[in-house]
């Protein structure tokens, strides 16, 4: 067992732990924090099904963003859709036998790699070219984009320029999953790719990438518009009433 393998194995265990626990705590805090008032951005659906639909549209189509700005939508959507395909394509490293639908996704995933980098390119370009967006960009915004671009480029590099032994990569990954380390090929591009991925996993729960879980908890999007028909009250607000007389002193 080479040092490298052990090193990367540790790195992945650590990154996974950070990702999982970080997200867990963040999501728990979102879920536990009460939303005392009804604040859906109207017009909003009046039923739960409606809300699910609205959220689905937001998550799958980026509806609000589309209304807002066609260019950001175009690039943002391109990036996210491609990212999804790429990630699905990557599932082949973690499943044996490979799920049949992951198999079907494979050919599209390759195009998606390019689309992802192109989308990121567009998003990044606007951070330089559009004054308004340049003004609000922080270094971390650039770094996250750089990180994703670098992951994409090293990935594509492995696919098209410097092949790695993906059979061995898969064995390594499967090995990690059952705590049985398998040797990892020592290709520089692969190592960079993996390191950056671990970095991405690490910063996920402490960065703006929290928008992914966050969107599901956004009260302006996930509430039903039915305040007149249903009383909505949070625990801490209900306490104000308990014991209080039905009439105020005013």
């Amino acid at each position, binding site marked *: 067992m080479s040092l490298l393998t052990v090193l990367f194995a540790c790195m992945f265990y650590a990154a996974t732990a950070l990702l999982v626990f970080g997200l867990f705590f963040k999501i728990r805090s979102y879920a536990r924090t009460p939303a005392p008032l009804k604040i859906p951005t*109207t017009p909003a659906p009046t039923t739960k099904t409606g809300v699910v639909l609205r959220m689905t549209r937001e998550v799958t189509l980026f509806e609000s963003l589309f209304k807002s700005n066609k260019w950001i939508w175009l690039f943002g959507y391109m990036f996210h859709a491609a990212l999804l395909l790429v990630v699905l394509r990557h599932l082949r490293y973690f499943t044996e036998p490979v799920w049949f639908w992951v198999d079907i996704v494979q050919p599209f995933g390759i195009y998606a790699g390019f689309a992802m980098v192109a989308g990121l390119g567009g998003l990044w370009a606007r951070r330089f070219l559009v004054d308004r967006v340049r003004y609000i960009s922080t270094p971390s915004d650039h770094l996250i984009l750089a990180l994703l671009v670098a992951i994409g480029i090293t990935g594509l590099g492995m696919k098209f320029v410097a092949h790695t032994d993906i059979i061995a990569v898969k064995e390594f990954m499967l090995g990690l999953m059952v705590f049985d380390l398998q040797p990892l090929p020592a290709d520089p591009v692969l190592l960079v790719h993996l390191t950056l991925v671990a970095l991405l996993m690490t910063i996920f729960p402490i960065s703006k990438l929290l928008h992914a879980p966050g969107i599901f908890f956004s009260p302006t999007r996930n509430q039903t518009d039915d305040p007149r028909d249903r009383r909505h009250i949070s625990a801490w607000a209900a306490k104000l009433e308990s014991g209080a007389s039905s009439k105020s002193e005013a």
Partner: protein
Amino acid sequence: MGDLLGRYRSLRVFMDACVHCGACTDKCHYYIGTADPKNMPVARQELMRSVYRRHFTFAGKYFPSLVGAQDLTEELLQDWYKYYYQCSECRRCSVYCPYGIDTAEVTMAGREILDTVGIGQKYTNEIMGKLHRIGNNLGLPGPALEDTLLGLEEDIFDATGVPVKLPLDAEGAEVMLVTPSADFFSEPHVESLIGYAKVFHAAGIKWTLSSKASEAGNFGMFIGSYDNMRRAAMRIRDAALDLGVKRIVVGECGHAWRVAYSFWNTLTGVGHGGEDAFSKQLQQQLDPNYPAPQHICEFTYDLIQQGKLKFDKSLNDHRTITFHDSCNVARGSRMGDMPGGQFVIPREVIKAVANNFYDMQEGTINEATFCCGGGGGLLTDDLMEIRVKGALPRMEAFNNVVQDKQVNFLALICAICKAQFTKVVPYYGFDMSMIGGVHQLVATAILLEVPEETAQESVASDD
């Protein structure tokens, strides 16, 4: 701040979720009007987010410059004060944010924090004081109110020959009307009040105003203080219980309607579907056949639908009308029973009473409406400059229909809009008389049965 984060999920999520995508940047009327980058919604949030980052996130604690985190310095506080009072909490940015991040929520939280550290805004606080002491924002005491109403009854009788009544504190009435106090004496607000009265009269519904709840507006919302908001709303509950009314109708006011529609049930149980004793006490009294509270436009619209009101549309023919969706109605509440009813119902009411109606350009109406520029507690002369600039986008769209369609009347359903526009339109070269309420139009066109003894008097138009 930690306290607020713990109490408001909205704040917690909004602090984390923004990706600086920039979608909201050009959506705020104050940014469009002032071109001050700190008026971009995301920049406004960033004032708070930077502090949040510094204190509550790992990256902010250890790599502040990387994520733009900073300590809450005196200077920053000044900025907070400046920019949290350059947001009218209109939620336009929230419509466009992919995560629905609502800068208004952040603004409220910001103001609440400012309040706790003792940098409150004079205007809002004075008004809240008046409300708590007297019962309305204008500080109009009960007897004065009664006088005003009597005066109005006379005016109506003189003009129409119809004895339309404006009852105050009438116990056992079916409907309690809660309306912004400006309706009692400011122009053109009063005209709408007359409109409500005529509608009640024509429909033959017993109604009343309340001296205790003579104010629909709730400035508690502007500083985002749950307690203040609740205290203000409690007066309505008390009045309703006192007068034993079955229905509560809210007059033309944007943020009042948002509070009433979205929060009253939560805050004080004015509504339906409450399970607890506190809300049941009131809700058993309210008539379940009607939504509680109900907007005056919904109320009038229902009557129109039932054919209970008669109009002569041609009486409004000297007007060419356009309608401004008030931001709080458009994006913070609803009318009717389907999403988007708040856009349809006022327009249907206008179309029922007038012939010439044109909408402003798409993208500036409905949920994309531009704020009047004076909402959110900015309606003070101290902030005149920002109010004028903030009205720019709305005025541009208005100007377009004025040019294209010869529009000469801007119909509103919000006391703040009315007050703001009457002040601001002159800066844009329009006449104050172009501003008015939807129920002012109703008042003009409604046909009342003139009792025989006064039949000889002519029906005059109201402006």
